[in-house]
């Protein structure tokens, strides 16, 4: 491991989502599904059974007309680091089908190892994990539109956002033939980042001070990656999951909604 670290400093890919910019259009969800061969069903009315690696939630402040406010919150996998890679889902997986990469900071999901016990789904506080209750059925001819870079999942396994890890693999390929082991910021971007028309999603390496994510979120690595930007927050910060997706909002109620707070709690 030491040898590897000498020529490649560990990266820590993360995301900043500006909730003040998000219009809730859902382009990120659509792009994500198309990019990652996410299966769908004929009847998608039961949202509990839908698979959405990236999902836009609607938050409301619960107030009456003049003060009524809403906020859309896109939620990918948070790729929690926990303490030294001890993500909630990783700790409970009995099959090592999911794991935390210290090289990229990405929480993997290996479908061929997963046997569908769904401990990880129970452990994930963000509902970022989904179970395949059925084998995917693509409408006639649609198999031809599937991405060959992402393997389709079978019935009985759990899947989740991978930060478009296949894009990382492909970008690394290009770097390798050019004799590099490092990626430029633009070389590896997720599908949702590129699809967002408002530019609300920013993706990059949180260990690289040159990347926009680091400059905006200003993660304090000494204190579990807490953002030093006063407008930035993370979901359920108090759980100590140390997620790598940061949210930005200038609205106080949105920031509060990001954590599981008790009414009238100071």
């Amino acid at each position, binding site marked *: *491991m030491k*040898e590897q670290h000498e020529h490649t400093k560990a990266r820590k890919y993360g995301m900043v989502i500006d909730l003040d910019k998000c219009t809730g259009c859902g382009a990120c969800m659509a792009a994500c599904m198309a990019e990652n061969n996410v299966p769908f069903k004929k009847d998608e009315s039961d949202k509990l059974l839908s698979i959405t690696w990236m999902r836009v939630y609607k938050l409301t402040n619960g107030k009456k007309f003049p003060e009524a406010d809403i906020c859309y919150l896109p939620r990918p996998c948070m790729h929690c680091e926990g303490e030294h*890679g001890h993500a909630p889902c990783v700790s409970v997986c*009995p099959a*090592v*089908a999911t*794991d*935390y*990469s*210290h*090289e*990229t900071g*990405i929480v*993997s999901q*290996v*479908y*061929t*190892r997963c046997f569908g016990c769904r401990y990880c789904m129970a452990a994930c506080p963000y509902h970022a994990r989904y179970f395949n209750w059925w084998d995917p059925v693509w409408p006639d001819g649609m198999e031809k539109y599937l991405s*060959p*870079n*992402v*393997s*389709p999942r079978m019935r009985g396994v759990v899947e989740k956002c991978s930060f478009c*890890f*296949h894009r990382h*693999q*492909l*970008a*690394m*390929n*290009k*770097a*390798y*033939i*050019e*004799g590099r*082991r490092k990626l430029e910021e633009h070389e590896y971007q997720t599908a949702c980042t590129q699809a967002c028309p408002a530019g609300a999603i920013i993706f990059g390496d949180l260990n690289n001070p040159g990347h926009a994510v680091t400059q905006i979120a200003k993660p304090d690595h000494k204190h579990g990656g807490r953002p030093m930007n006063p407008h930035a927050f993370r979901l359920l910060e108090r759980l100590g999951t140390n997620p790598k997706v940061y949210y930005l909002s200038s609205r106080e109620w949105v920031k509060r909604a990001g954590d599981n707070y008790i009414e009238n709690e100071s």
Partner: protein
Amino acid sequence: MSTSDDKAKEVSAEADVSAEAVDEVETASPPKVNEKKQDNGGLGFIILFFIIGLVGSLAVGWWIFPKLLYSQKKQPIDFNHVLHVGTVEEGCESCHYFREDGSFSGVPKLAQCVDCHEEVMGEDPEELKFVEEYVAKGKEVPWLIYSRQPDSVFFSHAAHIKMGKVDCVICHGYIGESTHSRVYEENRFTGYSRDIWGKNIAGLKKNTWDRMKMDDCAECHAENRAVPKTVETLPWPISWMPRPYEKPASSQIRVHIEKDACFVCHK
């Protein structure tokens, strides 16, 4: 697995047969004439049938079963590597090259072949067939890929060739020295080439290119420390590892596999 199952079934079937046969012999022979001799004869039959059963089941397991398991397919065109390597300028890389985006061309597409084969160049009937059936009609050749992996596998030629400096031969063998395309044997159950499991039905291998299973990848990774060194201390294949975390510190051998090892090659 299935071979041993078959064998077991075969053996039990033979045993039944031999038991019946012994009964018949006993009833057919005249009653109470030299009982001792008859016993010896029965034992002899049992041994004989056991041997026949054993040989039979071995034949089924080692010879008939693999024949049934794999279908034999011919490549659409009998390709002569030696001839091509001698003609092209840059050796293997003339056809099997890296693209600018880092992807590997693998088996060339028709467009690649047409660069030279727009017209028939030689007198080989295979070439004539190729030009008439594929080039003239603009149809891709449906080559059968010996090394095709399941779609859950991510293999980076760039990482291995450019960074790892692995020779093509390590995985693909001396295919560049072949004058004919060998028969493509497809596993009737899985649809994958026999090259993945290996020629040897027991799964034994002599050369690095004899098999292309996950354990073969893992073996080489362990040897070359592409995955941290401790993997090689494992007495079993890496795929058997239940949980790649560290063993208690008291244990003399610290077993620690790179935690994200799976996601390097799986997608």
